[in-house]
């Protein structure tokens, strides 16, 4: 890129609040101007970094609109005199023309003088704003139409709950993988990723080529541990998961089931019945006892609990679905949460996969149960550390897909996820919300989100939801409306100003993050050793527990 400013217009009017307006130079083709671009207004002593938010057609004379010029010559002659193009730009940051060593761009509090030149931002301008890529602020893309890195400040990113929104096909998953990859590489926080669709483990299918792209485990090796509830899934033919998860009935609380009420088909009467059972039979035991019953046992229960028999039958039919999830058992050998905690203490990042059990029910239950217990553990540890004056547990980022299922306005106030999102990093725990339906998320949670990465969104309500609690919503809305696949609007705490980027190429991300192809071979070898050992000890018999 040529590092020379190209003048595209002159400032003519506007205000800080509603944005500035500039007249496009006659020598610039309006078709080359596109919304979302970064532009620089050269003031007398300061440079104003602005976002181009709109382009409009203007005429100085009503008559020309009634009798438009017919031929090209007339159009050319009237251009810039009777007709012109107006650029609407939003000032964001300001910086002295000749910055000192420690000058950083700061929010703009005034406007540049009349007729200041409006120029395209140069490579130098962009790197002034977004910094130079390094381990803690990696490049995740470049501003649209430019080839300059935009860096995400991970130190800031880790300090708030964040969100990545976009409809399916917007490139959300790939970008999420990149963000997670850089987070893991930086070791600024430990990641727990609830990977509903199996995209963050060993490999993920590239939607455009159909070939498998390497994913986090393949790229980062032993830094990432794969936990799964479905150890027999074909997903693990090449690489064994690190840990098969089992969850005891006793760990399931009524609140967890309430959250999955929609998936289980629970009614209000059913929920009340559950509370009755829990009161009578004990919090930890009621579920396994109830699921072991059959219809013959119901009259006694009706007698005992004074509940409606039909409601009881319905509840039983609903809850029996849990039995179809083989990882939920009466007895388990090992406590998953303790295991996760151990990995976290050891600084390993966890990808939690669901294999073939990627139903919403399994996902909601598991994510909620584990997070609730982890949250308790974190509160205890953090409070303890505070009391003792020692370092608390490592900061943890929990990534959840389909976030609206956990943060629905009706449930967000009660769920652990809602609590984590609201209390922010008090207990060293933040969320990374991945969702395609942000309008389903509680406003209060959305307004607490620090950094938002927004891809293409179709629904007006989703776009409005994404902008909850942000300044300059009008500008950002236009930008979101104009996003294409693999383009994202980045805004919030970890960025000095909103910017629309073309996401970084995944293969260059892989090259940058990857520990080396050696680990792929290592993992394959490991799996072979494991299989050989299996055959040696057990023969070809399938070992089935339970």
């Amino acid at each position, binding site marked *: 890129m040529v590092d020379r400013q190209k003048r595209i217009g002159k400032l003519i009017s506007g205000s800080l609040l509603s944005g500035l307006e500039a007249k496009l130079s006659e020598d610039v083709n309006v078709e080359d101007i596109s919304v979302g671009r970064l532009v620089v207004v050269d003031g007398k002593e300061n440079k104003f970094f602005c976002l181009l938010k709109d382009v409009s057609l203007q005429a100085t004379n009503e008559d020309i609109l009634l009798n438009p010029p017919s031929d090209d*010559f007339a159009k050319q002659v009237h251009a810039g005199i009777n007709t012109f193009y107006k650029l609407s730009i939003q000032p964001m940051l300001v910086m002295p023309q000749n910055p000192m060593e420690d000058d950083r761009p700061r929010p703009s509090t005034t406007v540049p003088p009349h007729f200041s030149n409006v120029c395209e931002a140069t490579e130098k301008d962009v790197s002034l704003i977004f910094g130079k890529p390094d381990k803690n602020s990696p490049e995740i893309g470049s501003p649209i139409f430019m080839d300059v890195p935009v860096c995400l400040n991970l130190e800031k990113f880790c300090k708030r709950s964040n969100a990545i929104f976009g409809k399916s096909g917007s490139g959300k998953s790939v970008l999420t993988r990149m963000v997670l990859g850089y987070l893991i590489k930086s070791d600024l926080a430990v990641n727990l990723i609830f990977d509903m669709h199996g995209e963050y483990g060993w490999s993920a299918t590239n939607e455009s080529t159909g070939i498998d792209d390497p994913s986090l485990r393949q790229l980062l090796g032993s830094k990432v541990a794969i936990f799964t509830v479905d150890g027999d899934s074909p997903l693990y033919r090449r690489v064994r998961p690190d840990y098969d998860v089992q969850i005891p009935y006793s760990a399931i609380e009524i609140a967890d089931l309430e959250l999955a009420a929609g998936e289980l088909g629970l009614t209000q009467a059913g929920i009340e019945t559950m509370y009755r059972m829990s009161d009578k039979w004990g919090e930890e035991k009621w579920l396994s006892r109830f699921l072991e019953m059959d219809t013959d046992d119901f009259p006694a229960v009706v007698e005992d609990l004074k509940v409606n028999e039909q409601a009881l039958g319905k509840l039983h039919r609903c809850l029996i679905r849990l039995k179809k999830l083989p990882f939920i058992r009466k007895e388990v050998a090992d406590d998953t949460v303790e295991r996760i905690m151990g990995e976290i203490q050891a600084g390993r990042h966890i990808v939690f996969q669901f294999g073939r059990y990627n139903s919403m029910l399994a996902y909601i239950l598991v994510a909620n149960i584990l997070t609730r217990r982890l949250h308790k553990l974190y509160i205890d540890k953090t409070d303890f550390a505070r009391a003792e004056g020692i370092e608390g547990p490592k900061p943890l980022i929990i990534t959840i897909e389909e976030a609206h299922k956990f943060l629905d306005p009706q449930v967000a106030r009660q769920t652990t996820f809602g609590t984590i999102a609201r209390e922010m990093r008090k207990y060293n725990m933040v969320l990374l919300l991945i969702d395609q339906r942000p309008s389903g998320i509680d406003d209060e949670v959305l307004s607490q989100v620090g950094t938002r990465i927004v891809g293409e969104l179709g629904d007006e309500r989703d776009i409005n939801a994404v902008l909850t609690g942000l300044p300059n919503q009008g500008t950002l809305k236009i930008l979101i409306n104009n996003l294409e696949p693999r383009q994202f609007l980045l805004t919030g705490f970890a960025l000095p100003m909103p910017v629309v980027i073309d996401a970084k190429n995944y293969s260059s991300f892989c090259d940058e993050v990857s520990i080396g192809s050696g680990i792929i071979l290592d993992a394959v070898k490991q799996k072979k050793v494991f299989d050989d050992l299996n055959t040696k000890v057990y023969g070809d018999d399938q070992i089935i527990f339970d």
Partner: protein
Amino acid sequence: MTDRIGEVIQVYTTRFLAQSDNLLNPPYFGSFVRAESQGMSIYGLVFNVYETSIDPNRRAMAFGIEREELLKQQPQIAEFLKVEFEAAVIGFNDAGRIRAYLPPFPPRIHSFVYPCSKQEVLDLTEDLEFIRSINSLPGLPVEELVAASIRLAYRERGSDRNFLVRAGQEIAQLLKDEYEKARSIIRRISDGR
């Protein structure tokens, strides 16, 4: 000088009237002319050309014969006719520099008038100020005159399209509030291409 085309017979600050030397080759409408007077060149744009009887009390009469045939049969008729042309003053030459505004005084009567050289046309039309001068003079066929003079300057420039665009823009700017007028001039100059 041999290329003389006329002699000034009436002057005002903003325009002058000249009698053509030659009945056969009167100056074109919209052409640039130069009156030499008191050591100064005063430039004008021809906006009116007419042929009339030399005696204001006697009008020419219809003979019902083709003009060439008539002049052959009765050559004395030519002696009773004259061609006159009016030019709007658009600038002058002051110590070698062309100024595109009114001179301090008009050419004197009986000054001779010459056609402008190519270089003079180029110099006069370079900054297009003359369009503004013409537009502000009352009683001129502004639309036709501007279009004719620009077409001429365009040809002198070897059909330089940039010049035509520049001229069109100047007109559009000048006649910002009279879009229809600007539009008709622009249509006329774009025809000359």
